């Protein structure tokens, strides 16, 4: 055990810092949820690729740097410090679509898709949840029937972030309706431009509409779109979720460490409601801020440890749920304390929850953390049942 970064890692950090400082976009990410965002996100991904910063932990064979998880961590840390743009529409491809393909796809699938993701040529989205199947994901009913060398898909997904601007989707479908519910599912790469797909955008409390409902009416996909074996999609989905709940959140966790400092700085300057002192001079607020900072420090340490653990195993384990659980709790606490300290100024809707920082949008956005990617109640079940081995309820 040690906290020492190697000489090589330290020089990598230096390079990242300098490059981000000089090259991060000067224009903020557009606020509307349409093609503008897609173009912005993809252009930035392309810039990262061209400069050798895409896919830091991905295999070289598919355009990555193959530098390992520690380099990835350094990248996230410097990225958060530099306040570089939120991944946006690249989130699914970079954080769990790509990693799932690396772990489970065929050579052909990997060679075709991974470079496109890294080069910022395509947007991926995640079609797991359905109106009747959220927490109980395995009950999903969108069906796919094998017809020769094709799959014919009919059904509906919901909460598919960025579906309206996506090219591909991680799609879970039921390919064997007679098998037990976990055994009849397949994980499919869905071409979002295929005929038979319609999309409706759903408005969210952060005044966005990146949330979508996706309808499939006899959508035909080649059978070769299946990742892993037919009917073995549940185990592929579990790797997707372990990336989504594990490494996918690393960047967001690291962002907390910069946002708490930002809030402390606001508290040092802003007068508290009694007008006599700053928020930071107010014992209640100072202790709340500093204890929250202590919790965020511990979460950072747990992230370091999770990374070390992951280096000894192939894929992140259920322990990732602990990080996700704590991360969404602390983010909500921080965001709430943020609007509390903003006081009356927080009456105005403002900011962007994705660009981090202290704002009403960040506060409203923080509600998603304990729902998206599996609710906190479900994470608690996972930690107690799968990590601790407690009896199932």
């Amino acid at each position: 055990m040690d906290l020492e970064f190697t000489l090589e890692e330290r020089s990598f950090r230096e390079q990242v810092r300098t490059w981000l400082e000089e090259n991060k976009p000067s224009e903020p990410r557009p606020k509307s949820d349409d093609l503008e965002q897609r173009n912005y996100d993809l252009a930035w991904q392309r810039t990262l690729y061209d400069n050798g910063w895409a896919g830091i932990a991905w295999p070289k064979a598919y355009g990555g740097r193959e530098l390992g998880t520690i380099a990835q961590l350094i990248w996230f840390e410097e990225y958060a410090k530099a306040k570089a743009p939120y991944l946006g529409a690249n989130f699914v491809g970079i954080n769990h679509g790509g990693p799932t393909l690396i772990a489970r796809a065929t050579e052909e699938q990997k060679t075709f898709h991974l470079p496109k993701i890294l080069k910022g040529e395509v947007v991926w989205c995640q079609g797991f949840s359905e109106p009747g199947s959220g927490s109980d994901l395995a009950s999903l009913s969108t069906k796919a029937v094998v017809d020769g060398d094709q799959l014919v898909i009919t059904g509906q997904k919901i909460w598919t972030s960025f579906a309206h601007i996506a090219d591909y989707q991680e799609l879970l479908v039921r390919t064997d309706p007679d098998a037990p519910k976990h055994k009849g599912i397949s994980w499919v790469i869905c071409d979002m431009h295929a005929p038979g797909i319609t999309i409706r955008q759903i408005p969210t409390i952060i005044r966005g509409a990146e949330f979508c409902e996706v309808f499939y009416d006899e959508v035909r996909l080649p059978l070769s779109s299946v990742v892993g074996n037919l009917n073995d999609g549940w185990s592929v989905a579990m790797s997707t979720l372990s990336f989504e709940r594990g490494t996918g959140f690393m960047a967001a966790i690291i962002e907390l460490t910069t946002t708490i400092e930002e809030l402390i700085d606001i508290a040092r300057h802003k007068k508290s409601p009694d007008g006599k002192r700053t928020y930071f001079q107010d014992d209640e607020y100072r202790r709340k801020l500093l204890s929250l900072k202590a919790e965020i420090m511990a979460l950072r340490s747990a992230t370091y440890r999770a990374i070390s653990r992951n280096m000894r195993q192939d894929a992140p384990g259920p322990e990732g749920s602990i990080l996700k659980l704590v991360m969404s709790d602390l983010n909500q606490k921080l965001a709430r304390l943020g609007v509390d300290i903003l006081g009356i100024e927080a009456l105005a809707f403002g900011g962007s929850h994705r660009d981090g920082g202290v704002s009403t949008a960040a506060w409203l956005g923080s509600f998603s953390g304990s729902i998206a990617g599996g609710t906190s109640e479900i994470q608690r079940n996972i930690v107690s049942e799968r990590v601790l081995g407690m009896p199932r309820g």
Partner: protein
Amino acid sequence: MDMMQSPEQDEIERTVAAFLTEKFPVRGHGHSFKRTEPEIADELWQECCNLGWLSLGLSEEAGGVGYGLAEEAILFRELGRGLAPGPFLSGVLAAHVAATAGDHELVAKIISGEVRVALATPLNTDEASASFSGDISLVHTERADYAVMITPNKSAIYAMENVAVEPVDSVDISLAVGRAKFDNVHALHLVDSGASSLYERALILAAAISVGMAIEVMRISVEYSKTREQFGKPIGSFQALKTYAAYMASRCELAESQLFFAALAVEARFESARSEALAARFNANEAARINGEHAIQIHGGYGYTTEYTPYRFVTRNHVIERIITLRSAVIDAI
């Protein structure tokens, strides 16, 4: 001692609730992220004034219905439950200030709906004064002829005609919120808040709104948890959600009890009346805030949309928490 509502009070509750359900159904805003309609339609506002809602707790000599603070709290609890828009709180408080100042003409204009009043909250916990300078947060700015400011020691009514209001893109889009810089604005009336328990009344009526929201957002969450199924069972059968629901109910029970205790304590002129009113406000705010947070969580993905209603309670509470006195100043004064 009797902390339960009388049949007459039940009747007030029923009438107000029935009217609100019919005229102000609580709906999500969907894709409209900006207010496109007035905060409250003129006819509807007039109808509410005609029902005597602004004068329920005013004495008959002052032209009111002659009920007490408990009845007013019942009215405001229902307004909170129904997320009613409109300058009710500021109207009622202004009518009491005007009555205290003996300006019966203004009382009549306010309670009849002829003039409208915004609610002013000073940004730097300044006291209301005869000539006020400072930053002001305003709610219900639409068509406001006056603004009422209730602070711990002094309460005032200011004319808005020469005040430039800068609209705020309110987190709760159903309310007209604004900011203004008062520069030596002269009070039309300035009275002692203590004289007719104006500050206590403001705290209690704001608390009543929050209690109503806490109760209603709990109700819709409990209903949802009975019908939404996952893993082959209603989600309400999971202990995790029962725990939230049980705490939501406990918060409502405590906050509502403290609300009416405080209302009665103020009427009975208890020495502890102010502290009771502050405690009512504190408990009510906590209940509305935390219950709203749980409501979104219980609704899952649907709770994160503006097509369902939990966020309406969360965003309304966000505004209600920021009127009259901010949380830490409330706690300090208890």
